[in-house]
């Protein structure tokens, strides 16, 4: 378990993210179908499929790999997820840029930047039944661990656990933002699609960065 992750090795990270989305395509659409329009998995898989094509078999630094994902999602997939995950990955990429290694504090900056970017863009916060219910507690758990001096893998583990809990928390929430917010009480009892894909993505980061 390495305490840092070399920026040069972006390819395995990008592939890990692509894999988790492809594996869960149907599941994510099914969740979105319950209170949304059932296309979340389709949208995400289409975007990450394009990333896969554009990556081809070339090696890529982590910062550029995340930038490639961000630009691709932003310009190609549309929906809510284009701007949201586009912003998410572009912000992470900017913070990773020029850093030979990603250590615990740097990844913390990356998460913080992603969180702020989405807060500005969508105006959602914890309790609105969106991706933010996964991202905000995950970022805060990570930050707390780092402040206690935890090494990268440990902090990532805390982040992944918080993400999972945050995702699960959306089950009991009434949507306040996005398509599902029109349903009021009827949106309670099912997971939020974006919160679910967010948890999958953060877990994939945790696994691959601490491998």
């Amino acid at each position, binding site marked *: 378990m390495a305490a840092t992750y070399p920026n040069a090795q972006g390819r395995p990270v990008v592939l890990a993210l692509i894999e988790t989305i492809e594996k869960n395509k149907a599941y994510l659409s099914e969740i979105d*179908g319950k209170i949304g329009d*059932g*296309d979340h998995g389709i949208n995400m898989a*289409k975007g990450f499929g394009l990333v896969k094509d554009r990556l081809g078999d070339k090696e890529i630094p982590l910062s550029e790999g995340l930038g490639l994902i961000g630009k691709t999602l*932003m310009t190609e*997939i549309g*929906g809510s997820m284009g701007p949201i995950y586009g912003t998410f990955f572009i912000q992470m990429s900017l913070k990773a840029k020029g850093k030979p290694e990603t250590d615990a504090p740097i990844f913390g900056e990356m998460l913080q930047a992603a969180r702020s970017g989405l807060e500005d863009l*969508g105006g959602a916060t914890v309790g609105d039944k969106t991706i933010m219910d996964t991202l905000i507690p995950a970022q805060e758990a990570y930050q707390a661990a780092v402040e206690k001096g935890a090494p990268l893998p440990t902090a990532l583990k805390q982040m992944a656990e918080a993400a999972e809990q945050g995702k699960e928390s959306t089950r009991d929430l009434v949507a306040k933002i996005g*398509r*599902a917010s029109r349903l009021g009480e009827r949106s309670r009892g099912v997971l939020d699609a974006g919160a679910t894909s967010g948890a999958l993505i953060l877990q994939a980061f945790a696994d691959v960065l601490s491998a």
Partner: protein
Amino acid sequence: MQRIVNDPNRVVEDMLQGFFKAHRGLVEPVEANPRVVKYAKAPIAGKVGVVTGGGSGHKPAFVGYVGRNLCDAVAVGEVFSSPSAQVFFDAFKAADGGAGIACLYGNYAGDNMNVKMAKQLAALEGIEVKTVVANDDVASAPRDEPQKRRGVAGEVLMWKVGGAKAALGGSLDEVIAVAQKAINQTRSIGVGLTPCTIPAAGKPNFSIEPGTMEVGIGHHGEPGVLVSKLKTADEIAQLAMDHILPDLPFAAGDEVVALVSGLGATPVMELYIAFSKAYDLLKAAGIHVHRSYVGNYFTSLEMMGITFTLMKVDDELKRLIDLEAESTGLSQLAP
């Protein structure tokens, strides 16, 4: 899935190919972006460019409203998913005649965010973009939360009005003002009888029990405000008017434009049966129908169901609604 497709993940690309081949002379693709459909004569120098966009699967919306005295360009998204910011931006450029862009679209999280980013990209290139966000669906949020309401079939009337105003030489502010007035005075509601299937998904992502109907259903199958047993055409029309009329409110002496659209698979014959009752109810309420549109104007793939839309009109709106127009979704000659 009894559907006529090739690769279910490429239905939008394949559809656009056919659309461009079918309507040469009326619409054109743009080099910059295969997801933009522009009016063949656009950009028209000195005219405000009217642009809309949204997810696919709503034919004739959105590309069916590109044409003469209607929209200059449309940003085309995946089935039921907002176009990306890039597509909206490229649509703005395709429609830009130097007098600014009126982006008239519907209130959905994805569209809001993508248009927001596209506006910034346009600003960088000195293209002024102003927006009107349609929110005519009374079933999608309470009356005191209009900012949460969806845009549905009322968008068609917003485009007709905005497109006409721009064609008559209106300034950007004038086009925006009249399009906003149009949507402010428009109310809609939909009733769904069957679900629909996104080809890439392969099966319906929601269900409606046979013998029941979903009142207030959204154009993407978003659940409605109530599920009831399937009612008669007359009862459905009554229910729709009961929701729409008090919301604006529409009152005796008002003149309205009525639009009754199918959701895709409901025979048009049935739309007329329901319209007949709605018309009688309006008449009884002292409301005069200036013009009626009945047909498939804003659909949801092969969903069965119907939407009712009323727009309260004044002389200005009547003049703009009555202006001749030509597109694949809406063509009318001068009265």
